[in-house]
């Protein structure tokens, strides 16, 4: 069994209430941080832990905190990004629903480390029950003296607010989130300036994912060095994975970084294999925006080693044969699933969620969606594949925010790895509407390249 840091007490009845959470050792990290550590020491612990942002980009959290500008007389803000809208990712919602005090405690520790007097938890508008849960938890924490004026007699003041968003995917991008929090239209800002210099209301701001903030609690409790012992290389600690798709036991799992993908899918500790006795066809390993991989490449890297679930392990092989950790939305597809339809579905999502600010993404996502719709419904042409690859290249990297990349990668990777399935949709248009392409050779072991002596 892997170590559980965030979900250790998740099955304790009533862990969502203050009393049970406190009885299980809750808020001891907070007391340790506020009473024995200075803010800089907290940042130093998080730096030592090697914690990397759990929202998708994987940027070291401690580094992000130390970049925060600290001009005199200007307030600083901590914003928790609970906008979790990536298709396939639902770990933050799970955390906020079942163990809200972990997030509250993490927020107070992080706010203390950054010197923020006001902090916000921005939660997606659709998650109204979670917003109520968090508000109740904040009220409980306040009643216990962990929020408000002069916390634990240390002279540190903090107010924590929950802000419901409007329910747009784009508001999960940190600068769009800040705009939305300010009450404006959620358009991403043009960087620089980065939020660490001028963020919310023009003040230095740190935006962190729910899971990153929650992870500061075990880091402070056990110390950064202890946390860094878990995991492999630069991927330290544990990570919540939202497993969905054709798995026997889908759900949120906490893994120690470094678990082999094969073990994660097939072992009984985690997903328990593919449902209904089917075989694995493809996996989207980190939420809808990362490249999709066929079964043979997700289980083993191109070099033939077992692929492990770390930031580096999943991206082994670059975009040619690798994918990304992303936000940990692990979607498995069995042999009955249609990759063309899935790609179209993702593309439809990005078309719908593009903010429309910059032209490549605004026009390109709609174009890709239309071409994929045509392919899926049997009216495509063989030239459409090249067209899609070219359009995705024109979008990728040329936009203000990463939504353009996120829209381009799934399409480009699906065509890269599943081109024969796309071609089958063109050549057998009528049949493609009625049935799926099947597994084909996607689970076959990769052929060993011949060595020329």
């Amino acid at each position, binding site marked *: 069994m892997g170590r559980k840091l965030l979900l250790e007490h998740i099955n304790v009845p009533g862990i969502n209430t203050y009393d049970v959470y406190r009885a299980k050792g809750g808020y001891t990290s907070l007391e340790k941080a506020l009473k024995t550590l200075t803010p800089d020491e907290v940042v130093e612990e998080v730096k030592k832990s090697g914690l990397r942002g759990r929202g998708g980009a994987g940027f070291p959290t401690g580094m992000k905190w130390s970049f925060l500008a600290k001009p005199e007389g200007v307030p600083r803000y901590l914003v928790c990004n609970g906008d979790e809208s990536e298709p396939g990712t639902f770990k933050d919602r799970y955390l906020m629903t079942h163990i809200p005090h972990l997030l509250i405690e993490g927020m107070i520790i992080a706010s203390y480390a950054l010197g923020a007097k006001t902090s916000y938890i921005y939660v997606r508008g659709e998650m109204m029950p979670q917003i109520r849960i968090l508000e109740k938890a904040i009220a409980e924490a306040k009643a216990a003296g962990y929020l408000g004026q002069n916390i634990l007699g240390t002279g540190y003041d903090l107010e924590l607010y929950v802000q419901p968003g409007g329910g747009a995917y784009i508001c999960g991008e940190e600068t769009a989130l800040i705009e939305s929090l300010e009450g404006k239209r959620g358009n991403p800002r043009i960087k620089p300036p980065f939020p660490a210099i001028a963020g919310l209301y023009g003040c230095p701001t740190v935006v962190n994912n729910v899971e990153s903030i929650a992870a500061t609690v075990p880091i402070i409790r056990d110390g950064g060095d202890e946390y860094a012992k878990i995991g492999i290389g630069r991927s330290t600690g544990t990570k919540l994975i939202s497993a969905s798709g054709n798995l026997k036991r889908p759900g949120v799992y906490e893994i120690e970084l470094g678990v082999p993908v094969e073990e994660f899918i097939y072992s009984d500790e985690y997903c328990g294999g593919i449902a209904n006795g089917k075989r694995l066809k493809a996996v989207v390993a980190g939420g809808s925006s990362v490249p999709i991989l066929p079964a043979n490449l997700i289980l083993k890297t191109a070099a033939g080693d077992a692929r492990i679930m770390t930031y580096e392990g999943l991206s082994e092989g670059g975009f040619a044969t690798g994918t990304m950790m992303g936000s940990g939305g692990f979607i498995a597809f069995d042999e009955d699933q249609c990759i063309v339809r899935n790609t179209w579905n993702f593309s439809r999502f990005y078309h719908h969620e*593009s903010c429309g600010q910059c032209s490549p993404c605004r026009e390109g996502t709609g174009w890709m969606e239309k071409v994929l719709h045509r392919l899926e419904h049997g009216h495509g042409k063989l030239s459409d594949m090249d067209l899609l690859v070219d359009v995705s290249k024109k979008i990728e990297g040329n936009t203000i925010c990463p939504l353009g990349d996120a829209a381009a990668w799934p399409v480009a990777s699906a065509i890269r790895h599943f081109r024969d399935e796309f071609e089958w949709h063109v050549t057998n248009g009528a049949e493609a509407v009625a049935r799926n392409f099947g597994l084909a050779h996607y689970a076959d072991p990769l052929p060993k390249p011949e060595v020329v002596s």
Partner: protein
Amino acid sequence: MVKVTIDGISIEVEPGTSILNAARQIGGDIVPPAMCYYSKLEGSGGKCRTCLVKVSKGSEKDPRPMPKLVASCRTTVMDGMEVQNITSPEVTEARKGVVEMLLINHPLDCPICDQAGECHLQDLGYEHGAAKTRYEFDRRTFDRIDIGDKIQLHMNRCILCYRCVFTADQITEKRVHGVLNRGDHAEISTYIQKAVDNDFSGNVIDVCPVGALTDRTFRFKNRVWFTKPVEAHRDCEHEKCSGKVTLWYKGEDVLRVTARKDQYGEVEEFICNTCRFDKKKTSDWVIEGPRKVSHKSVISSNHYETLHPLPVVKTNPVLLEANKEQFERETRL
């Protein structure tokens, strides 16, 4: 002063200058096109992505190149920065892609568009666009709406540059129009069918890079290249209006009044609606003289002050003489 090199040409500029403005100080072919950036409007730029350039050397201190192409209108220069614009195939390719994207939902109705001839998208498409479209679907369409008694919005043509939004925010007292919806169904519209009605609202027509916002007093009156621009001014009673305009003549009539625009199509000074829409008689204005139009613009093609066009039929004295002889012979008989 910081030194920046754009396509091999070095220039010293003030710290804080954007790459685009540094390129404009050099001038010539290396200036990236800009569809959404407007130097007079704070916060504009960064959206259309036509001004993308490659930074091959970040600065003297940190010589690493920037990982992605950057929007030159919103990236400030650093000392020792090296920028590639037209010398980088990557930039040309990306720009071609952006122009293609801008045109896939554009109606391409230039033959009946009032902006034709002074349209930035037309110029951009001519320079960087592909000869053929790869887009095989229905174009997005909207209804035309009048967003004020003098301004018509033709949303089909809009490229969502946000310039009119910034203008309304910064030049006029109160903004009542903005961008509704998101993605490719985003549109410019007024707040619950309110009319844009204030003294400076007409400036949105001038800042619009395409024919999305047009002057209803000039609609379908004439093509811009048949009108003659003349610079004029008047003592405008409005304190914020400079009264310096360009009058567009067709014969004796003033068909249209606009603000004066510089070589990048940006207005020099904003003018009020009275000057723009109501003062359409020569007697209202003090004429300064004809406006210089770049020889690259189609508008200049109508002005033959110095250049005499070649005769369409060449005179041939030998043939004339022969014809005359034949005529005489036949009439004599």
